[in-house]
């Protein structure tokens, strides 16, 4: 495969609501057509999230959900059942980095949700949240 330049290997960061509705899907370094593919990737990972949860998780970090041909999808669930996803094409990615990414992604999400004008469980269109996530992804480059 020709190596596609991405940030850390962060190809996609996503937030999915407790009703399994996508709230935010951000792709990095891919075309618009390819970006749609990530919606699908995230959606299929939701099944795996359900499986992992049944086991009575104490940890928010769900680990590797599915390795597809080119990508690995990692999951994280918040205490209010919002799901965070990280899709990466970096084969050398360290688990410590993934966990720290999710901790900071979670923190950004928590701060964002405190905006009194944001209706819970709706699409996240905030420019400043987007900037935070981009900056977060960049910091792992």
């Amino acid at each position, binding site marked *: 495969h020709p190596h596609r330049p991405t940030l850390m290997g962060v190809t996609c960061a996503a937030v999915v609501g407790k009703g399994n509705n996508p709230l935010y899907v951000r792709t990095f370094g891919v075309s618009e057509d390819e970006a749609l593919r990530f919606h699908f990737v995230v959606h299929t990972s939701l099944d795996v999230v359900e499986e992992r949860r049944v086991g009575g998780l104490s940890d928010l970090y769900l680990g590797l959900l599915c390795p597809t041909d080119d990508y690995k999808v990692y999951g994280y669930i918040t205490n209010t059942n919002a799901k965070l996803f990280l899709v990466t094409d970096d084969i050398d990615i360290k688990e410590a980095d993934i966990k720290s990414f999710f901790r900071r992604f979670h923190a950004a999400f928590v701060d964002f949700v*405190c905006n*009194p*004008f944001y209706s819970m469980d709706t699409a996240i269109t905030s420019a*400043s949240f987007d900037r935070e996530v981009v900056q977060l992804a960049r910091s792992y480059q």
Partner: protein
Amino acid sequence: LPFPIRMAKNYARQGDAAFAKVDKINAELLTLTYGSMVSQLMKDFEDVEEVNKQLEKMGYNIGLRLVDEFLAKSGVSRCEGFKDAVEIIAKVGLKMFLGVAAEVTNWNTTTTECSLVLTENPLNDFVELTEQYNALFYSNILCGVIRGALEMVQMRVECRFVKCQLRGDDVSEMRITLKEMIPEAYAGDEE
């Protein structure tokens, strides 16, 4: 005339002392409560101008009542006119109740109008205003508080935001104008 610097320094110290003495609550509780109130007002009134008015009115009612508490707890004695009053509000009042002091700047030549500049405002934390809220003065309650408080010490003022950090400005700035000194009502002639 430049305001005596030593007096400004005293007020800052008094502000810090007053702030240290008062009971504290979690800042996020204040921020979230205020935010929830503004967002509810938007849902109820649907009109940004109306919400600005409501916030100012609420603030006015707070200001009327807050002044007695302020004068009792802050150790500030009677102020000597509009200029002094604004300095006290900026350095002692805002510090004591909001946790942040403001700068007083841009006096006009007759010292009847000036700006209160805030570089930080805890009410603004986490808030993001989208296009539809462009005309909203999110912290307008503060303008009302100042108007109500000054009315209780015989000054009728107008107070409005001219800059807001939530709108992309580098600072938040309120412009205060003294409209008139209100003569104290006399109890009655004593002969």
